[in-house]
């Protein structure tokens, strides 16, 4: 085809027309963008008008930094002291369906103290699809629990020790909104009042001494074995419990004493002491005995006798059982972990033990990687760095270990490494880049297996904090 023919061809005409349409469309969009642009100031004025109807003005703009505006479950991007004395806070909540949710929250300041929530207004949330389901009653519900908020409670979508605010069918968006409101409350308490904000990862966590508590997850059996050491409860001393929860119900419950003070066990009902009362119980059944999330209600105990003189200790039993069952799903929740797609959670186990320091022992069984079979690793991470790394084979197929560099096989390459160092070798998050290995030789024929080694190390390091605290990923 000659140049002349090309310019006369249908292909050129099609291309030219399409290009012209795109250019004109682009020009139109640019013009309309200029005409219809909504500035930040205009948006803010709209918000003020919506919330206050012109009855209040901004008195002071608070300075937001990464330090004072970032929280576990959200962040604050703007905050203002209004002329009515309250604070208008722009906060985001993590955990939405398609991203974070941004809210405007009016926090009541009463005589220099936290007085609750006056109003909650949705700002933006482009990723959420079902925001039409949130009626005014949902937003108003945030303002109807100020007494409980002042007592220290927070909003949530499940659990007995939170103020529930959830719209059925949009639990994730509800959760993100609750997180945004809770973040605004935390910001007010910490940045405005100067209080220390304690955030809990787990339900009932405030009754538990997490520094002595251990959580052992068994993904294959869908069970979790816990050594729960409770905080002292009034005059009752700290009590430790060994609890196993499987499929959400308690299968073993035993009060143990070696690490804690003696408690007056003779006054506690025997079915509590030997754990038979709790075996088979689920989170809902146990939560029913703690109707306000903390105080034991004897009327809800199905005839269980609570002798005078040990009610606080008995309460600790129930709180421990509630901690073990109510957080059952939260103990696992590995789906959002970094590098999780390469790990076979059915066969992997993770053990966290604070008594050994900030140390997590992981038995990570990797998924097969192309032609490379599944490989298992025993990895220990302490204070964010690998302290032991060993490839183990008993539960997996044999892999051609002779081709893999010895320093990888015996783990010496990984010991002392941090996440940044390991992640650098996996620049796109999955493929091993031989140029980034600092001179480590990767023999042809075992590159996929070697990749699994690095992915296991990356998984262990990036999720160390998660398994250490059971909370969010590192």
């Amino acid at each position, binding site marked *: 085809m000659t140049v002349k023919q090309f310019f006369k061809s249908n292909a050129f005409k*099609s291309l030219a027309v*399409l290009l012209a349409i795109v250019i004109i469309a682009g020009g*139109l969009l640019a013009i309309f963008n200029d005409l*219809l642009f909504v500035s930040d100031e205009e948006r803010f004025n709209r918000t003020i008008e919506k919330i206050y109807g012109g009855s209040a003005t901004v008195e002071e703009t608070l300075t937001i930094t990464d330090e004072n505006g970032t929280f576990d479950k959200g962040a604050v991007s703007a905050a203002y002291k209004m002329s009515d004395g309250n604070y208008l806070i722009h906060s985001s909540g993590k955990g939405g369906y398609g991203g974070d949710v941004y809210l405007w929250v009016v926090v009541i300041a009463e005589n220099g103290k936290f007085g609750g929530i006056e109003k909650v207004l949705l700002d933006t949330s482009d990723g959420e*699809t079902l*925001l*039409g389901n949130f009626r005014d009653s949902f937003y108003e519900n945030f303002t109807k629990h100020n007494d409980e908020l002042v007592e220290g409670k927070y909003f949530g979508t499940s659990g007995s020790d939170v103020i529930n605010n959830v719209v*059925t069918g949009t639990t994730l968006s509800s959760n993100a909104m609750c997180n945004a409101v809770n973040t605004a409350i935390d910001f007010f308490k910490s940045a405005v009042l100067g209080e220390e904000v304690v955030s809990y990862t787990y339900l009932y966590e405030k009754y538990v001494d997490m520094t002595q508590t251990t959580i052992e997850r068994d993904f294959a059996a869908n069970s979790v074995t816990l050594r729960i050491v409770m905080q002292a409860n009034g005059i009752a001393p700290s009590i430790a419990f060994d609890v196993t929860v499987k499929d959400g119900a308690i299968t073993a419950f035993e009060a143990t004493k070696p690490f804690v003070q003696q408690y007056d066990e003779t006054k506690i009902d025997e079915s509590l002491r030997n754990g038979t009362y709790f075996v088979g119980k689920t989170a809902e059944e146990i939560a029913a005995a703690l109707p306000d999330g903390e105080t034991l209600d004897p009327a809800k105990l199905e005839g269980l006798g609570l002798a005078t003189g040990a009610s606080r200790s008995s309460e600790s039993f129930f709180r421990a059982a509630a901690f073990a069952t109510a957080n059952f799903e939260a103990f696992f929740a590995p789906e959002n972990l970094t590098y999780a797609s390469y790990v076979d959670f059915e066969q992997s186990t993770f053990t966290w033990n604070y008594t050994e320091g900030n140390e997590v022992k992981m038995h990570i069984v990797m998924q097969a990687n192309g032609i490379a079979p599944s490989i298992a690793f025993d990895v220990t991470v302490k204070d964010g760095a690998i302290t032991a790394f060993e490839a183990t084979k008993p539960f997996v197929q044999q892999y051609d270990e002779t081709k893999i560099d010895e320093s990888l096989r015996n783990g010496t390459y990984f010991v002392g490494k941090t996440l940044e160092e390991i992640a650098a070798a996996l620049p796109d998050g999955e493929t091993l880049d031989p140029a980034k290995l600092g001179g480590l030789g990767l023999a042809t024929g075992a590159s996929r297996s070697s990749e699994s080694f690095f992915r296991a190390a990356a998984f262990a390091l990036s999720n160390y904090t998660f398994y250490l605290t059971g909370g969010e990923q590192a």
Partner: protein
Amino acid sequence: MNKYVKTAVDGLITNNATFKLVLGTCATLALTTSAINGVGMGLSVTAVLLLSNVVISLLRKVIPNTVRIPAFIVIIATMVTILRMALDKFLPDLYDSMGVFLPLIVVNCIILGRAEAFASKQPVLDSAIDGVATGLGFTAALTIMGVIRELLGSGSFFGIQLWDFKIGFFTSSAGAFFVYGMCIALFTLISNRVEYAHRARKARELRVPAEGPLDAPGISAKEEA
């Protein structure tokens, strides 16, 4: 029947995009939890349909057949983006309530469907009428569903609380499918009855010359049908 009237009736009723052709289902199910959302979405689609139909009709002799679909999509996407900007500027509450479904109008089958089946082949005025009629048919359908779901699911009508009685099912996804199915059934029933009556009337008219007037002794309208 005047061709413009026929085009309008087709878009509004005979080929109603929602209840007859079952198009634009995603937005229909998701945004009819309240009547105002239904109206908002319907009018937004109507605006885009009108503009895109007009532009595509104007360009129908310029756009080569081989690139018509990408060209249509670019035009529709432009219209939708302009609509988004306008709503954000002038109706921010509606803009917020429609969320992600507003940009998704770009892939609404109704719009591309009318562009491909009608606007790319018909003059501008016809295309404009088709766009408005189809859009209003969609709006009416969404409004009807929105009213039903809001009344039963939230006890309110266009945001005005009427009673405390609520059936949560109607605001759920399952409730949306249920109401949608019931509306389609009712629409089909009514349109079949109307068509039946129309055919009967036609039949009567056709028989008049051969058998005399309908009110002639021994012939009733029912027997004719």
